[in-house]
């Protein structure tokens, strides 16, 4: 079985580096970017099993990036990994932020590698 592919976008390179190591140890293939614009310009559709996006990033935030990626690959599962408390300030249409959405698709930083792995597996295996 081929390894699952993960797209990881976070403006903090320390975060992407550490998480890339951790996820690769768990057997994932990880493409990580520190700039959402670059990530979008080199995006390969129908390639990834999951995209993990930071929310608070310069130039383009996670929600905007999600919208752009969805245009290219509407079936890709996309979750957020964020240190934010309040998400509302970063999204124009707060109606998209239902409690169910937050519970299923938002992972809070900091998180242990093991807990992150559990969340990733849950999301990938979800229908």
């Amino acid at each position: 079985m081929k390894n699952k592919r993960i797209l990881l976008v976070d403006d903090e390179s320390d975060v992407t580096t550490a998480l890339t190591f951790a996820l690769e140890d768990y057997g994932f293939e990880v493409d990580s970017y520190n700039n959402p614009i670059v990530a979008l310009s080199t995006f390969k559709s129908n390639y990834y099993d999951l995209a993990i996006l930071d929310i608070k990033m310069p130039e383009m935030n996670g929600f905007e990036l999600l919208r752009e990626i969805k245009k290219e690959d509407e079936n890709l599962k996309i979750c957020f990994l964020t240190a934010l408390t309040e998400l509302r300030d970063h999204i124009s249409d707060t109606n998209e932020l239902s409690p169910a959405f937050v519970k299923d698709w938002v992972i809070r930083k900091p998180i242990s590698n093991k807990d992150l792995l559990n969340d990733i597996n849950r999301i990938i295996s979800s229908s």
Partner: protein
Amino acid sequence: MKLKKKSSYNALFSEHAKEVGIICIILIIAVSYGLFFYQQNATEESVRNGLFVEQRERQIGSTKAMAQHIGSDLSLVASILQGLADSSYLQQGELYGDRVDKLMRERFDQINNITRVDGLFIADRDDIMAYDVVTEGQRSFVNIDISFRDYVQETKKTLRPVFSEGFEGIDGIYRIAITFPIISRENGQYIGIVGVQMPAIDFFARYGNVYSIGSQYLAALDRNAVQLIHPVKAFIGVSFFDNHTQEATGHNIILNSLIRTVMSGKSDSAIYEFRDVQRLTTGYPIFVEGKPEYFAFIITPTAEIYANINDVLFNERLKMFTLVAGFTVAVVTLILFLIKWNNILDRRIKRRTKELEKSNEQLKVHDKMQREFINIAAHELRTPIQPILSSSEVLLSKIKDSRHRELLDIVSRNANRLRRLAEDILDVSRIESHSLSLHKEQFNINDIIEDVVEGYRNQIQVQSKVGSDTEILFTPKDDVILVEADKGRLAQVIFNLLDNSLKFTKPTRGKGKIHIISEKKDNQVTVGIMDTGMGIDPEIFPKLFSRFASKSFSGTGLGLFISKSIIEEHGGKIWAQNNPNGGGAIFSFTIPSSQHLGLDGSGGN
């Protein structure tokens, strides 16, 4: 915006209420004054009637007094005449001469002091005037036969004093005469007459107005109902029941009845219309020696009485109206003052409200900035912990050297501790900036306790922490206890208390044990967590729930402070006590149970 709308609605409403209030007050005042004036009128009417009745009684009384006065004057004149008739000269038939003249003049003066008479005369037994004394300007009738006068014949016939009917003298003046017979004391023979003649008008004018018909006036009748005096000359000497008079009075039944009653010797009074003028007439017979000789009447146009009454009433009304006007001015001044005062207060309140709104706005801005700061700080604190945690975890799986692993454990453990500290410090910031907002929902608190206990058991098992062999027991007293609370925050409290208990539970006597209970009583939900540890240090006890009061090796020292704040934000209480039955501490909190009808259906007790 919403608030503004509401307040303007309130302002509109109160404006409307104010208008209605003012209209009501004006109506009440108008009705009060209307009632007052109506009452005043009714009172005046009854006072007017009362005064009129009083006036009528007074006139009846004064008519009687006047009649008696006239009667006594007539009687006095008669007695002087009697004295003259009894004088020795006249008794001896000496009816003229110097001595008689002297006597006559004396008596004449006496009588003139009582009333003005035209002449005092003596007639002999053949009715020939023997002597007279007359006032200046009056002619003497000596030697003239006066037998044609009724009163002469009457005196002669009755041999008694006579108060004559009215008669017209040859000079056209209407007169009455008083006569006394001269009768010899020795043989009882009729000698002649002494008498006086006087103008009726002059006589009666002494007792009242006999000239003007426009106001109260006096009228007098003789025994034949002939009018002796009257302001209207044409009626003088005419019988009241004569056609001429009857036509003039319009055959007035009331008046005729009055005259007849008085002429029958009784007092009477009546009110009647005379040529569109209402009159009050009172009559009384003039008795002389117990016999009615003349009849006196006082006639008053009631308009005159009413004018007097109205004068009295007008003065009273003036006083009353002055009082009312003064009172009204006082009330109006008071109302104006109150309105002015109200306006001033209104303006003041509006200004204050504006100021409050402004400072409220500023506070909101400040709060918003505070919240934003905390959110940014949270993000910035959490972010660097992630790579530390992840990196140390990756390395742990790679490094076999136990001393290096121990160092990585330190990194990992402290990263976790830093993470908790970050969360706790952020919570404290929220609490202190009053931005700890609760997201309340209704749920069964037992479910949350169950979840936290389950999670906690797993955690201590996995991490092989100190006390991992401690037994955690949860026994709810009620199956379902509904609360309206923030799930996450309540779980945080339970977790903190559990964590706190475990950290301080040293298995002094065998295996450690933590017992959690929950119950509902009197609309309050109580959760208690008992441990078998060493209990709370008496030194720490008073500041147990303050920041950094107690700190375990791995804790942040903020858990109990945050827990207390969360419980209080829910309207509850949290406290701790040492177990009185031996070792260990009990941490308890209460929060209100849900008042809504929930699954338990009781909604209360």
